[in-house]
C-alpha cells in the first residue's frame, strides 16, 4: 500500500490551470523531492494534498484511504503534517508554546475550557522533546519574536514532527537559510526515522538531491519527469526546464 497516492489531480484559478492531471505515488518511508521552476504549481499541489484547497477533479489517498473529501483539519488527525514555505508561526508566544499548540491540536484536550494549560504538563514535556530533536531545546522558553529566521524554520519542523506524522510535507525547508543552517536542517531531516514518509519541495538542489531517493519534476502544473536521482538529473527535459542548460 502506498503512503500517498494522487491521481488525476487538477485545479484551476479562473482560466489559469495551476495543476493539470497530476499523478503521484509515494511509497511508505520514501523520501520524495518535488522540483520545478517558479509557478510550476508545487505549493498548490501541497495545498491540494493537505486539503487547504479543494481539487476540481482527481483523488488523494493516504495509506489506501481516499481522503479527497476529508476536511483538511481531519487530515492532521490521520497522520499528515506540513511546514510552510512562508513561515507561519505564533509570533506572540514562546517557542515551546508553538510546539505545544501542535501537540494540543491532536488531543481532545483542545476543547477543554476548564483547566489551566500549564497543568497539562505532558504537552510542555513533549514540546521540549520535539525542540531537542531540532536542537532548540535550550531556548524553548524564548519568545518567538526573539528568534532568528533559521531558528523559526526549525520550529516549523519541530511542530510538524511533534505531531508524529506518518506523512510529512516539507515546503522549502531550506529557503532563506545560511550554509551552516542548511547543514543543520539537513542533518535533522536525515535523522527522521523511516516510519515517516517525506515529500519535500525544494529549490536548493545541492542539499535536496542528496536527501531524496525519487524526484518528481513539475512544469506548468504537469509531471514532466519522474524517477530516481540519476535518471531525473540526466533527463534532457530536466536540463531544459529546470537547470536551464
Amino acid at each position, binding site marked *: 500500500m502506498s503512503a500517498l497516492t494522487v491521481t488525476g489531480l487538477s485545479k484551476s484559478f479562473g482560466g489559469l490551470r495551476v495543476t493539470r492531471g497530476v499523478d503521484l505515488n509515494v511509497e511508505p518511508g520514501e523520501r520524495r523531492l518535488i522540483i520545478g521552476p517558479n509557478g510550476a504549481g508545487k505549493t498548490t499541489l501541497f495545498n491540494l494534498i*493537505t486539503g*487547504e484547497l479543494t481539487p476540481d477533479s482527481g483523488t488523494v489517498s493516504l495509506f489506501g484511504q481516499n481522503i479527497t473529501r476529508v476536511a*483538511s*483539519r*481531519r487530515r*492532521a*488527525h490521520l497522520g499528515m*503534517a*506540513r511546514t*510552510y514555505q512562508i513561515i*507561519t*508561526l*505564533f*509570533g*506572540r508566544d514562546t517557542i515551546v*508554546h508553538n510546539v*505545544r*499548540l*501542535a501537540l*494540543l*491540536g*491532536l*488531543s481532545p*484536550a*483542545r*476543547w*477543554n*475550557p*476548564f*483547566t*489551566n*494549560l*500549564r497543568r*497539562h504538563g505532558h504537552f510542555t514535556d513533549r514540546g521540549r522533546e520535539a525542540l531537542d530533536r531540532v536542537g532548540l531545546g535550550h531556548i524553548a522558553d524564548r519568545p518567538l519574536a526573539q528568534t532568528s529566521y533559521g531558528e523559526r524554520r526549525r520550529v516549523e519542523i519541530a*511542530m510538524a514532527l511533534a*505531531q508524529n506524522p506518518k506523512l510529512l510535507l516539507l515546503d522549502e525547508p531550506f529557503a532563506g537559510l545560511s550554509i551552516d543552517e542548511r547543514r543543520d536542517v539537513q542533518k535533522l531531516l536525515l535523522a527522521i526515522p523511516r516510519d515517516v514518509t517525506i515529500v519535500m519541495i525544494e529549490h536548493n538542489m545541492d542539499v535536496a538531491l542528496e536527501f531524496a531517493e525519487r524526484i518528481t519534476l513539475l512544469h506548468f502544473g504537469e509531471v514532466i519527469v519522474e524517477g530516481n536521482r540519476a535518471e531525473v538529473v540526466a533527463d534532457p527535459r530536466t536540463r531544459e526546464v529546470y537547470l536551464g542548460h
Partner: protein
Amino acid sequence: MNGRNIALGVAAIALVAVPYWMPGVYYVNVSSQILFYAIFALGLNILVGYGGLVSLGHAGLFGITAYAAAYVLQSGYNHTEAIFAALAVGAVSTAVFAALALRATGIGFIMITLALGQIIWGLAYRWISVTHGDNGINVKTRPAPFGLDLGSAVTFYYATLVVFAICVVAVMIFVRSPFGAALMGARDQPRRMNALGYHVWAIRFWACMFSGLLTSIAAILFVYYTQFISPQTLALTSSAEVLLMVISGGAGTLLGPIVGAALVVTVKSVVSGFLERWNFLLGAIFVTIVILMPEGLVPGSARLWRLACAKLRAPVKPAVTEAKP
C-alpha cells in the same frame, strides 16, 4: 507576593468596602453599573481581544436578553423563571448571531454583527405588541434571593459584586485553558491552526457562546438595576460604547475591560453631573489613550511604569561610567 498581587488585593478590598467609603447611595449605584458593564465588556473582550473578532452587535444580544427578562416578568412569571428564560433566549440568539456572523472574519464579521444589531434595535422599536416600542417595558420588582431584598442599593451592589467575581474567575480560567490557547491561536494563525487539526470555526463559535453568556448575565443585572428597558439600550452607540471600554482598557487583557468600564461609566454618570459636554471629555480621553497608549490603559500604564522606573535608575549609570578612570 509581588506588586501586582498586592494591588489586586487592595482593589478587591476596596470593591467589598464600596458602601462604606463611597460618599452616598448614588455612588454605590454607579459602582453597581461599573460592575455589570465590566461583565459586558469582559464578554465582548473574549471575542475582540482573544478571538480577534470585533463585534458591533453586542448591544443587540444584550437587549434581547434584557427584553426577554422584562417580557417574561411582565407576563406574570417569577424571577427564577424570568432569569432562566432570559439566559435561554440569550443563548439561542447568540447561536444565531454566531452562525450568521462567522461566515466571515475581519471587516465582514464587523458588518454582519452591525447589521444584526440594527435589526434587533429595529424590532425593539417597531414590534410594539411585544416591546411597547419607545415606551419600553417596566420591571416592577427586583428579586430577593435567600431572603435578601435586592431593592436596596447596597444589597444590589453586593449581589452584582458576587456575580462579577464569578465572571472574572470564569474568564481567568477560560483564558488560561487549552481552549483559550486554541482561541488565541485561531486569532493569530487560523490557517496554521486548521492544518494542525483544530476546527477553527467551532472554536470561534463556542467563544461566541461564552461571550454571549457573559453579555446575557450583564443584561439581566442591567434590567434589574434600571428596572426598565427601551430600544435606546440596543442602539449602535451602546455597542460602540462597550467596544470602547474594551479597547480603551486594553483588549486581550483580563483587567483592561474592567478598567475601561469604570472609565466610561464614571465619565458618563459622574462627570456628566458637572459637565454638560461630557461626551466631548470622553472623546478627548479616548484620543489621548489612543495616542499615548494604543494598546489600552492597562498594558499601556504597565509599559509607561516600566519606562519610568528605567528612567529613574538611568542617571545612576553614567555616574558609574564617569567614575571609571
